[in-house]
């Protein structure tokens, strides 16, 4: 009990500062002795960089993993997932099973993606297979929907073809690197509008993997009715769900902010589609989140001073299949509505309760196993230690579709893992 936690942040966000102050923590500057630093992604780069970095002491905790970009940069995420799948295939794991057309049965949750300009030729080959399809271009390093556009003609991305013949040793400036993915033009629509899911996932350690899912995620709706019509490919209000974009739309409403709770979504889907398919959808969502974390776990620097709260973006298509769109290292802490503010305040509160046990000066050597009571609105998504205790073969058996038994029914209390259905 050696005094109060000293905190620093380089992000002026009230949901953060209010949480620190309510714990009686003391604000200090970066150059002083601090215990807890909630930093932006630029700062984490400096802390762990070869030139400007410094060693963290045992009583210091930060909110990012050093190389989080393995998961949070669009191109690296795809690379890691592709690598992970190939590894499983080589091992002969049943998880990597494919169907007759060569699609992965359980690991096909990222739309076909290529890096540009590096994979330009491969992309063209794929594009020509179905020339009427739409693709979405996203800059690798940007956020909030900036720089994103849709294409349906090769001519629209001529720019990225000029370096296609050069060798891969030519370094590309990260600003120009793009990913191009097959656009999901059949999203599930509610009230005729497209939406995506924002889910918060807290990772306290990658090896062993321990992650938590925040129960209060939300849907972000477009203000304009969805249409796949080619004449509206340029209309970002139809296609991009980012609040940063939608809030400039004419019909943006500041009371609800175009957001729905995940429980609303669940109620709607259960009422209109049935309970089994809805439960299956949510199970699949949990599954793809865990698989994405497992994919990057081997390459993550599992620094014990770190934890991270990710913002997962998921889109559900009209066949009720969830797709992982991207993972955000720095999910927005700005509040667009009153409900939003409450949600984000509670999110940070519960995150701090797990990452900094008892609100006391941290010791990064602790076992990172918080008691059930402090989880708040989080529930355990996956705990590798627990899972290994139960035997890994259970996971494989249930995945291949055998009957799941009583344990597989809906999760009841917060302590048990959410994924009993397929563990």
């Amino acid at each position, binding site marked *: 009990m050696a005094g109060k936690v000293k905190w620093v942040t380089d992000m002026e966000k009230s949901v953060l500062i209010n949480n620190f102050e309510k714990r009686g923590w003391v604000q200090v500057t970066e150059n002083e002795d601090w215990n807890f630093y909630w930093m932006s992604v630029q700062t984490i780069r400096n802390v762990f960089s070869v030139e400007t970095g410094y060693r963290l002491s045992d009583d210091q905790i930060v909110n990012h993993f050093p190389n989080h970009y393995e998961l949070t940069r669009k191109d690296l995420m795809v690379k890691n997932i592709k690598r992970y799948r190939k590894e499983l295939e080589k091992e002969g794991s049943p998880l990597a099973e494919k169907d007759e057309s060569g699609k992965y049965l359980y690991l096909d949750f990222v739309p076909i993606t290529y890096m540009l300009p590096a994979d330009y030729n491969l992309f063209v080959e794929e594009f020509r297979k179905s020339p009427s399809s739409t693709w979405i271009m996203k800059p690798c390093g940007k956020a909030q929907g900036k720089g994103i556009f849709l294409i349906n003609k090769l001519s629209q991305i001529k720019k990225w073809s000029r370096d296609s013949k050069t060798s891969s040793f030519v370094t590309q400036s990260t600003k120009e690197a793009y990913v191009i993915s097959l656009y999901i033009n059949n999203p599930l629509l509610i009230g005729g509008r497209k939406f995506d899911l924002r889910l918060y996932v807290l990772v306290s350690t990658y090896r062993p993997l321990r992650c938590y899912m925040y129960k209060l995620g939300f849907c972000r709706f477009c203000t304009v009715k969805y249409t796949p019509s080619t004449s509206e490919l340029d209309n970002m209000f139809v296609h991009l769900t980012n609040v940063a974009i939608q809030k400039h739309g004419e019909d943006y409403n500041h009371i609800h902010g175009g957001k729905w709770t995940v429980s609303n979504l669940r109620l709607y889907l259960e009422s209109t589609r049935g309970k089994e398919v809805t439960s299956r959808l949510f199970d699949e969502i949990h599954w793809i989140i865990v698989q994405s974390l497992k994919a990057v776990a081997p390459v993550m620097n599992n620094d014990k001073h770190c934890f991270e709260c990710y913002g997962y973006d998921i889109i559900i298509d009209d066949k009720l299949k969830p797709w992982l769109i991207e993972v955000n290292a720095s999910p927005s802490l700005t509040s667009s509505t009153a409900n939003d503010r409450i949600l984000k305040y509670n999110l940070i509160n519960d995150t701090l309760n797990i990452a900094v046990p008892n609100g006391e000066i941290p010791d990064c050597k602790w076992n990172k196993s918080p008691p059930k009571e402090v989880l708040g609105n989080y529930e355990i998504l996956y705990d590798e230690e627990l899972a290994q205790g139960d035997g890994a073969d259970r996971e494989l058996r249930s995945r291949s579709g055998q009957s799941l038994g009583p344990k597989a029914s*809906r999760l009841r209390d917060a302590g048990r893992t959410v994924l009993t259905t397929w563990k």
Partner: protein
Amino acid sequence: MLQEESDLSLIIAQIVQKLKGSNLYAQLERQAWASLQRPEIKLESLKEDIKEFFKISGWEKKLQNAVYSELSVFPLPSHPAAPPEHLKEPLVYMRKAQRPVGEQKELLNKWNEMGTDEPDLSLFRPVYAPKDFLEVLINLRNPNYENGDSLSFRTHLGLIQVPLKVKDIPELKELFVELGLTTGQLGIDDSTQVPPELFENEHVRIGQKVLTEQDSAAAQQYIRQGSPTALRAELWALILNISSHPEDILYYEQLKTNVIQHDLLVDSLIYKDVKLTASNDDYYFVFEDYLYQVLLCFSRDTSVLSHFAYNSASPPKSYIRGKLGLEEYAVFYPPNGVIPFHGFSMYVAPLCFLYHEPSKLYQIFREMYVRFFFRLHSISSHPSGIVSLCLLFETLLQTYLPQLFYHLREIGAQPLRISFKWMVRAFSGYLATDQLLLLWDRILGYNSLEILAVLAAAVFAFRAVNLMEVTSLAAAEAVLADLSTLKVMPLLQIFLFATVT
């Protein structure tokens, strides 16, 4: 005995008359003819064989459901029957307001996007709001009733001064017996702490059986204990006797065409209402466009006029210009006879969580309206009418929470002033949607709106401690402003079955 028998035969005759004009009758006839081909139908025992065939093939069940459906809205003998008039005039009138062809085409394209295409609304105010309606009700008096000058403990101290008969808690306990403490409920016994084997699983299984049997009456009995989310849409359709035949879809499409071709002044009221209420609602904003579709069609649907046979109100009339007072030039306006008030769209909004196919959504809403919702904004003496509900609410409060009631009255916060808007909207927009649906399950199950008054009283009972400390109407409103965290079934159960009376 003789009187009862003749009453019964009269009712039977009326229902038969009604059903003879229905689609079901034509279908049954067709089925009967077709069945003659079947080997088991013999000429000697034609009648019995066809009856047997109907029973086995499920057609008898359909007939049963139809009869049951008619019975549920059958007027009580004391109600005056206003003859429904399906006039041709509304069509003539609407033709006078026809839109030009170009505009029609544009509107057809925009049909799905009306949320962004409304006219300038700043000139329109809602015709009336629940507050205005309450003032009317407060001033209702029965001229034959002598109140007496002296106040006694019998004197009703609430706002409603019409002496209708309302139930007390023992009678309510009898009516709502399935909500008792020893009966399983959805909304209580399906919470996360309770293992599903105790009640929920079995209840779901029974629900599925009820749906397979397609029995309206059984469904209505079943739903008193609440409906599982996945079965609710079908159960409500079964209870309301809605099935989606091609004729129904065609009828809806026809209404849609009317919207596109003809303008109605009431459309602007609808736009305004949706914009003011559902568009700002956390749960329902997503369905804004569906609401326009349903309500604009609804206002043109003359079949709604038939409910005025058992609605003591009459549809408002309008007269062709220059012919004021001449009956042969009178038309019902709007065509369905219902003027939307502020908050009307909230009757439709919760249904959007259950039905995503517009014509089905429309049919369900229409049936819900002509069976239940109309009673919430028309003046009648029916036990489910809004007047009775208000009186029931006030009586419950005065009888079982007298201290609270007197306190609120003293500080100028008559409880009905706060709870009226909840009841008029059947709590839509005040409760969380999952809770609202559990409440509406019971409305369907008991074929009565009395539960709204009971819930209103239960809410006051729940927040009694805080309410005792307030000293103004505004403060009382604040205590009761947010109902979104309330759990409806425990509140009802405690109020009815666990409070010392």
